[in-house]
């Protein structure tokens, strides 16, 4: 969400608007948490850099090329059960193996990974996974069912990172190691997206972790669950081995020669993630031949890079929707006609072309176009003051009653710009809008209670697992009330029913009509301005092949799929 087109949201913004940094967590999935580390600059704290030089041309596993990934954000935690944001996930899913893995198509499908295959019982709750027998951890231990069981337990007990995905769905005691290579998981209720969440469940080496756990910790017999050790070491089985981490300077991962999977020819056998402070520095590294940049650089920078030869910029609108929630339980926004009027008043053209650079999509309804079950034939709002006025006339309010508040996250200039745009649009309509900045932390608190929730709240709805449920349930199901993801306090029993049903229905083909119906109702109720689905940018060296943006946090950077031409 920070690859926004005219606002250069880079490290400095993190420092300056810490809270903004936090929001980035959620959306682009790059936590503000990191910024503390990244306050150390492009060369960090000057700690020893003996065996690795900056261009990442360090001793590579088995003769392959080395890959330099330049980013302006630094990870906070490399603990697979703590990491939750973009860069963390990049490292984690290259070092750890989940049971199932995303393909690089958009929207992504699932492919076998540690689990060779799996079956879902008819109850829709019992999942049986057959692990591949040739998978070993980096220390040589075989990957066993009990490691999987342990990983679930560790995830759910630490209650950190991605654990929210399974809270109320999966509890450790419902995970059983049937035998060495068979795991059975029983969800507390039918949860259709379950499989799609598993790519975020990394499997760790139980013995290794327990062996390195510090005795003093919050987890009783498990001490600290080895979390501090895992910051600088890995207990995974993935294609790469964490070979060096210099906080806020660089992370080096080396090819795992014993990996069960296969690398392409001309693979990259060593990947250095270089953390730099300024987007200018990042651009410089790219020109000097770095293989890939992250997606947070200013638009101008990407344009400059594109100008030069042997760098290409990949831009694609995938799963990055920007909503402006409207408080459906407070006058005058409790009147659907008012909400529609506002939806008609907003200048989407200016938003997409002047505030943005024109390559973001205008959202049709709540779902990004790239997500399956998205439907085209929805009422989509364009700026049309007559229509707006017409809607107002149908409502029991007049334009002068529109005295609203728009709250956005400190430091996100795009959100500010959108607010200012809406402000002038509402003026044209005859209403008025006050634009207000608030730190992310305060916003989560505000959204917890309908009285403190602002009239209108600008939100990038973060993307996690590849399922429509990610967008719809947290935003529009009344169970989600109190979370910033449902700041509209939208209450529609039919939608509730549909969304629950969508979760309960296992077969995708059966779920599609359900979600289409839900989208239609939501779009008509206009509980939010569905402003845009923002394009994601990455700069790549021409020599890099095999890059696919499947739009999933961290899964863009699947280095073991990359190769030189």
């Amino acid at each position: 969400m920070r690859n926004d087109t005219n606002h250069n949201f880079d490290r400095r913004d993190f420092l300056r608007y810490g809270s903004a940094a936090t929001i980035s967590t959620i959306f682009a999935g790059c936590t503000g948490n990191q910024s503390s580390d990244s306050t150390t600059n492009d060369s960090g704290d000057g700690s020893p850099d003996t065996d690795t030089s900056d261009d990442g041309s360090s001793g590579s596993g088995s003769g392959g090329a080395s890959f330099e990934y330049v980013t302006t954000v630094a990870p906070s935690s490399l603990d697979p059960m703590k990491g939750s944001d973009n860069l963390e996930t990049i490292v984690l899913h290259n070092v750890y193996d989940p049971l199932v893995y995303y393909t690089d198509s958009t929207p992504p499908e699932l492919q076998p990974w540690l689990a060779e295959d799996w079956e879902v019982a008819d109850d829709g709750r019992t999942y049986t996974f057959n692990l591949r027998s040739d998978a070993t951890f980096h220390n040589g231990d075989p990957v066993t069912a009990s490691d999987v069981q342990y990983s679930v337990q560790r995830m759910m007990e630490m209650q950190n990172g991605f654990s929210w995905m399974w809270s109320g769905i999966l509890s450790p005691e419902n995970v059983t190691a049937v035998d060495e290579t068979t795991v059975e998981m029983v969800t507390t209720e039918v949860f259709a997206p379950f499989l799609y969440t598993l790519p975020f469940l990394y499997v760790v080496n139980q013995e290794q972790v327990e062996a390195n756990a510090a005795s003093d910790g919050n987890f009783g017999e498990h001490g600290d669950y080895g979390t501090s050790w895992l910051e600088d070491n890995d207990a995974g089985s993935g294609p790469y081995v964490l070979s060096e981490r210099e906080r806020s300077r660089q992370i080096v991962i080396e090819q795992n020669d014993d990996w069960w999977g296969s690398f392409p020819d001309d693979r990259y056998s060593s990947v250095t993630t270089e953390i730099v402070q300024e987007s200018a520095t990042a651009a410089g590294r790219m020109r000097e031949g770095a293989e890939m940049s992250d997606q947070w650089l200013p638009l101008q920078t990407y344009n400059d890079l594109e100008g030069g030869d042997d760098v290409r910029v990949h831009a694609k609108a995938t799963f990055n929707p920007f909503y402006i929630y409207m408080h459906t339980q407070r006058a005058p926004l409790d009147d659907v006609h008012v909400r529609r009027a506002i939806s008609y008043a907003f200048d989407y053209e200016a938003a997409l072309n002047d505030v943005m650079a024109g390559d973001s999509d205008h959202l049709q309804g709540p779902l990004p176009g790239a997500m399956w079950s998205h439907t085209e034939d929805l009422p989509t709002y364009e700026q049309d003051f007559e229509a707006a006025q017409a809607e107002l006339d149908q409502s029991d309010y007049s334009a002068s009653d529109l005295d609203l508040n728009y709250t956005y996250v400190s430091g996100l200039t795009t959100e500010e710009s959108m607010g200012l745009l809406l402000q002038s649009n509402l003026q044209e309509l005859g209403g008025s809008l006050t634009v207000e900045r608030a730190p992310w932390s305060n916003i989560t608190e505000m959204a917890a209670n309908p009285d403190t929730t602002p009239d209108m709240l600008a939100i990038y709805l973060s993307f996690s697992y590849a399922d429509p449920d990610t967008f719809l349930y947290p935003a529009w199901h009344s169970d989600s009330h109190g979370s910033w993801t449902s700041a509209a306090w939208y209450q529609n029993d039919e939608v509730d029913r549909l969304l629950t049903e969508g979760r309960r229905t296992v077969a995708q083909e059966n779920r599609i009509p359900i979600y289409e119906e839900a989208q239609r109702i939501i779009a008509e109720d206009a509980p939010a301005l569905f402003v845009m689905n923002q394009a994601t940018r990455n700069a790549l060296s021409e020599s890099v092949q095999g890059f696919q943006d499947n739009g999933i946090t961290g899964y863009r950077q699947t280095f073991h799929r990359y190769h030189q031409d």
Partner: protein
Amino acid sequence: MGHRNYLIKRGLSTIPMFVGLSVLIFTLARVIPGRPARLALGPRASDEAVQNLREQMGLDKPLWEQYFDYVGGVIQGDLGQSLISNRNVATDLMEYFPATFELTTLAMIIAVFVGVPLGVVAGQHKDRWPDNASRLFSFFNVSLPPFWAGILLQLVIAFQLGWLPATGRVGDVSPMPIETTGLLLVDSLLAFNVPAFVSATQHLILPAITLSLAPIADIARMTRSSFIEEYDKDYVEGLRTHGIPERLIAYKYVLRRSFASSLTIIGLDYGFLLGSAFVVEIVFSWPGMASYGVEAILQKDINAMVGVTLVVGASFLLVNFAVDVLYGVFDPRVWHDGDSQ
């Protein structure tokens, strides 16, 4: 004698201040709205997860209890866990403080070596053009918003002329010197690592200059006034009458006295310098304690916030203590305050 007792008293008197400071900041950090625990766990964390963390952090205990727990930890060098770096705040500070120390120290050195002569020249030519020029210069300096001054320097020196790097602490040099003191300049020298030293120096110049502007002005001003006051003391006239060269009078006799009084302002300025470091480090992406602190405060990383503020306060108190000690060196009379009439 008298002086030493004074110093001891002075030293002891800082302790209650320190306690007061910690209470103040600690309370401040705890009354902040917005639950830090939620921040630590990320936006989608479930409420019970947040609640658990709160309990782990002891945030549910009464404030005074939390305070004593904290103090207990501090005594063992444990400043608590940072919510954003997942490390003990002490560890973080270890990492970031040297950078800030290096920066502020250099800035202060610049300030003294520019400010004092400036003040002397101004004092020597009281109310004539050098005086007015230096006063004007001082006014400009104190009036410059540090962050803006930094930006201007970046625009001109870094971007326009490309003479010096705009941000960061060191360029792409490898190998980096082994970290011993954490002060890059020192470390690179110890390692005879010329490229690292050069790069570190280049990165240090602009932020250090930016920081030094205001202190230069204050020191110059203070030196000037104390210099002038000292300059028409009888003994100066005496020396002059004996044909002692003006330069010697100014820099050997007068300056020594007036520098003693300038020391006080230097102590005070160090505080302001630490303050402006909070914006300057950000302008220059300086990986120091100040930028860490800004973020800690803005992100409500309460432990980090308290830790940083305490360190800032402590360094301020320490510097002023050091100043009092130095004072005696420059004005020996204080050693004789007992027997002077």
